[in-house]
């Protein structure tokens, strides 16, 4: 508990007019210094969870603490130690890039001189100095995102929240943001992010909570989650027909098969032991009389974990 930046106990949120809770008896602990991911499809409850922790959503039941402070009882105190990057661009359109940072400092009680110095420093760090005097309208999506991160850490928050930080960013900006967050984390910044990109959770997070329907289905390091599938290889076979027949033939004859799944003309097989997997698969398919159109081998991903837990795909 001492090292936990965030603790929730039985946290529940039922929105008005809904019978199903958006978040259902959630117990979470986020440790100081880690990057913690809430991964799940739309409607899993991750944004609601983040909303409660950032004091914007009032829980129906349960408790949540940020830096040891009750978010329902003392929202204003919680905001002192939280930095938030929301999904949309919430930069102040009437201020310049530099002023967006400067006034954030004033808002958080820093004096004029300190705010000026910190604004300069952060623009430098986030490679935005050139744009200091520009209107925020002039920024590209990636730059606006960078400025929002700079603004969120301006007051040195105990925890930095990011809600779907890379949704809508181009691949290059996404990589840049990942690098930036990793760097901040190396310096000790605790980060909580919600995402529905499994790759993002895998790359960035020390621990990931996989959510669906308001519940945490699994919570561990990405590696441990992937190991929990029991498979080390994911085999994807494309056929023109007889997918079901191939699936049962593979389950019977391939050896080391953990599970099989047929979706349309694609058979996905989770396998332990990847030795000569491709030729062996082709052999099994030929004996079963099924024509293989395409075949791919990959390592298990968080997507695999999600499919195993929910029976459905996470989708991008």
């Amino acid at each position, binding site marked *: 508990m001492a090292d936990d930046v965030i603790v929730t106990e039985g946290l529940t949120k039922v929105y008005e007019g809904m019978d199903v809770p958006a978040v259902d008896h959630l117990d979470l602990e986020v440790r*100081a210094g880690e990057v913690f991911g809430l991964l799940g499809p739309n409607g899993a409850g991750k944004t609601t969870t983040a909303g409660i922790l950032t004091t914007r959503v009032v829980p129906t039941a349960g408790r949540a603490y940020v830096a040891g402070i009750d978010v329902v009882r003392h929202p204003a105190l919680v*905001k002192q130690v939280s930095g938030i990057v929301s999904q949309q661009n*919430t930069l102040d359109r*009437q201020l310049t890039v530099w002023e967006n940072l400067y*006034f954030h400092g004033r808002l958080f009680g820093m004096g004029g001189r300190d705010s000026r110095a910190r604004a300069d*420093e952060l623009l430098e*760090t986030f490679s935005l100095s050139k744009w200091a005097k520009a209107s925020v309208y002039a920024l590209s999506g990636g730059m606006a995102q960078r400025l929002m991160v700079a*603004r969120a850490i301006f007051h040195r928050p*105990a925890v930095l929240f990011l809600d779907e930080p890379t949704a809508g960013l181009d691949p290059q900006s996404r990589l840049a943001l990942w690098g930036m967050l990793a760097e901040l984390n190396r310096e*000790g910044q605790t980060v909580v992010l919600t995402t529905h990109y499994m790759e993002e959770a895998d790359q960035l997070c020390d621990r990931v909570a996989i959510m669906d329907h308001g519940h945490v289905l699994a919570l561990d390091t990405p590696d441990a989650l992937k190991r929990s599938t029991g498979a080390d290889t994911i085999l994807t076979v494309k056929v023109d027909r007889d997918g079901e027949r191939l699936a049962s033939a593979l389950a019977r004859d391939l050896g080391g098969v953990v599970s099989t799944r047929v979706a349309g003309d694609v058979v996905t097989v989770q396998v332990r032991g990847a030795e000569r997997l491709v030729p062996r698969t082709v052999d099994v398919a030929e004996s079963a009389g099924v024509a293989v159109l395409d075949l791919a081998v990959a390592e298990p991903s968080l997507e695999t974990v999600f499919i195993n837990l929910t029976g459905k795909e996470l989708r991008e």
Partner: protein
Amino acid sequence: MTTLRIEAHPTRSATTASRAALAGLILRDLTVLKKTFGEFVLRTLIQPFLLCFVFLYVFPKIGQAVGGSSAGATGFATILVPGVVGISIMFQGVQSIALAMAQEFGFTREIEDRVQAPCPIWLVAVSKVLSGSVQGVIAAAIVFPIAAVVHAAGVTATVSLHWLEIVTLVPLACVAMASLGLVLGTSFEPRNIGLMFGFVVLPITFLGGTYYPWTHLAPVTIGHVHWLQTLVLLNPLIYVNEGMRAAFTDAPHMHLYVIYPVLVGFATLFLSIGLRNFRRRVLS
């Protein structure tokens, strides 16, 4: 990077942090006002200028009904000048708060960031009302001299400054109208702003005693009922304009014993509705 020195726990009490946040919010608003002052002056002056130009210059020139004779025109000017100040204060409330807020709640989502300030959420709305009120006072200060001089030759408004009323009623009217702006800005979705103008702003404007004093409405009756004079008592702008008449002229006006408490009442009512709406819009 040497950017981090994390505050693991709040370092300031909620009160200290809130005070600083309020100051920060207002400082931001005033900075924006300073940056866009030219625009502010233009949008503040255009309506009063047109009102004075049409009613106090064009009408007397062409002998139109409103104060056809020169003496009548002068009487009308005395009525209109404080009305123009009152209506400008009201429009400041609508423009600086209702329109800005509809935008911030709507497509820019800037409000999302503003409510992360380390203070209670209601204080964010209060800061808007305060800086909106300041804009109202500035608007009154620049509109009054213009309204007092844009006339045809021979038409003069009989101005008389009652400073006690000016320094109390002008700020009070500004707070009441800024609070009205908060109610409007938090009640209407951005896409319904047209509705707001058509069904709220226009009726308030035309039935708000800008072009006529409330005391002159008695002849509008059905049977023996002074229906219009009674009905417009629901309109907050009536009290603002009557207050401006009391502050800037010697013309007959509604009694000050009525104007002060009713304006305080409207300010309180609008502020409480506006703050409640604001909280509802921000929290879920």
